[in-house]
């Protein structure tokens, strides 16, 4: 069996978890194994149909008030309980904040190897092979895990959702005992960013600004541009962040976030090697820069040579027109 842990936020299963589940289904199919989903929470069995709808008949549920608030310690006990019961070949997580927090804890509990932030899972000679970026994408490592089970976190926005293929199923309940003294930390509050912007790692389109913006004000132009595009987020280069023009959670690059959106627009970003590492796996890259020799221009599919203060408002206008058609 290949299983995927389904992360719940705001009472819903995260899309990136369904991507991980879709990949579990594909690889399990290739190996002649079944795929399964795992839910952990207070009363979450009602979310099982999301997995049934993707052709997953086996949905394991670990429920209880002790799982109402996220605690990596309690959730690791729950998932280790699932692994003991179902003995999966592999357990996938989405490489989200929660997945990255939880998967290593589960791996240590099970004595299992973990492949972090995978961008590809393949079957080779009857075994799973994981491919993941290292040095923020300057190189790619392929690996096998010799442990049982094998754990992996899968990067959001990379693995396609499986086609709908509704099957009927019943949640399979697993009883797990979490001793109160085993839980010494848990989430007490979730503070949303006021703007409710989507995160650069989850956006389909990222519009990033760099030193060429000359100050925090010009990020307003990028926000206007992002606002006309579907599922778009505003990103930034390290120099823009280090100058205090925008928060570090927007930083793309080797000491920021690595992104793989459908479209990455680099505005006033020269393209330092540590920035290129973080965005080179984007499907399409657009650059707006007044210097035609800037390194970013050499990786861009389309580049506009010009003054961003003139180009960006025009671009916003044209996109608005085109998207209204």
């Amino acid at each position: 069996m290949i299983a995927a842990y389904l992360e719940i936020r705001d009472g819903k299963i995260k899309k990136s978890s369904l991507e991980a589940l879709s990949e579990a289904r594909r690889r399990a199919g290739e190996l002649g194994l079944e795929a399964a989903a795992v839910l952990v929470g207070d009363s979450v069995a009602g979310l099982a149909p999301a997995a049934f709808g993707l052709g997953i008949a086996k949905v394991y549920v670990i429920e209880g008030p002790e799982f109402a608030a996220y605690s990596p310690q309690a959730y690791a006990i729950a998932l280790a309980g699932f692994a003991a019961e179902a003995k999966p070949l592999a357990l996938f997580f989405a490489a989200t904040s929660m997945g990255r927090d939880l998967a290593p804890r589960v791996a240590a509990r099970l004595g299992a190897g973990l492949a972090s932030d995978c961008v590809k899972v393949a079957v080779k000679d009857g075994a799973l092979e994981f491919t993941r970026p290292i040095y923020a994408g300057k190189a790619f490592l392929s690996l096998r895990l010799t442990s049982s089970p094998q754990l992996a976190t899968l990067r959001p926005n990379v693995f396609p959702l499986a086609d709908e293929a509704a099957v009927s199923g019943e949640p399979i309940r697993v009883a797990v005992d979490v001793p109160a003294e085993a839980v010494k930390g848990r989430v007490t509050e979730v503070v949303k960013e006021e703007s409710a912007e989507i995160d650069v790692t989850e956006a389909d389109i990222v519009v990033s600004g760099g030193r060429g913006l000359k100050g925090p004000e010009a990020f307003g132009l990028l926000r206007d541009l992002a606002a006309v595009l579907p599922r778009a987020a505003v990103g930034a280069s390290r120099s823009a962040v280090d100058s205090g023009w925008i928060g570090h959670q927007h930083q793309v690059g080797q000491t920021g976030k690595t992104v793989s959106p459908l479209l990455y627009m680099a505005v006033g970003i020269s393209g330092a090697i540590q920035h290129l590492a973080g965005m080179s796996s984007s499907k399409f890259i657009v650059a707006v820069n007044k210097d035609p020799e800037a390194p970013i221009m050499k990786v861009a599919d389309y580049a506009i040579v010009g003054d961003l203060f003139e180009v960006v408002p025009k671009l916003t206008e044209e996109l608005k027109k085109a998207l209204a058609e």
Partner: protein
Amino acid sequence: MNMLVFVKRVPDTESRIRIQHETRTILEDGLNFVISPYDEYAVEEALRIKEAKGGTVRVVAVGRDEAATVLRKCLAMGADEAFLVKDDAPETYDGLRTARIIARAVERKLGGADLLLFGKQSVGADNGQVPAMAAELLGLPQATVVTKLEIDGASATALREIEGGLEKVALTLPAVVTAQKGLNEPRYETLKGIMAAKKKPVPVITLDELGLGAGDLASAVEVTGLDVPAARQAGRMLQGDPAEAARELVRLLRNEAKVI
């Protein structure tokens, strides 16, 4: 507050990564090695907690002899003591192996701590596994990717970054905390600090002393390939009138790339 900070020596972020294909390893010639940037935030946070509440800051690196250079930097920043857990194995990319070494060192040699600080991930292997694995092996709670940390007696509150917001995590000490950019602004070493750091001993802890056998040190990761991505090709360059260039770009995005 008795604190341990774990640091790693890595190539700096401006490095161009080249590959030795036969051995599936990174070529180290010509690389400039530094303390992993996120570890610097962890060291700084420990120093600030010490300044506010008293206590000790001990830094630990697992690695080859060269790792002592980043330990000396931490001493120069103001850390009280530094320890090198000597591990000559090349990069395994197996976080659990390192976590076992760290957990054992904490239990057998370092006498525990109230707070164990790490960077959120090493820059390079990019695994982000070791801190949470060490926390699990030691039975400690964790807060990872933290941008704010408040200590109050035997408990702590951390803000950790999540998609589109923050999570507030309540911890009972001892605990593991991993530092994200934004937690603080690391200080520079002073000349006086650098001079003093040169004179401080950096005791070496061997894996034998930790009683770790071949089984504990075996890697669950078998590397089957290592490659640099194919270079992207430059595409079309649009020059001239901004309005026209913008219109042409939108047309290309819609009709050629089909992304909007």
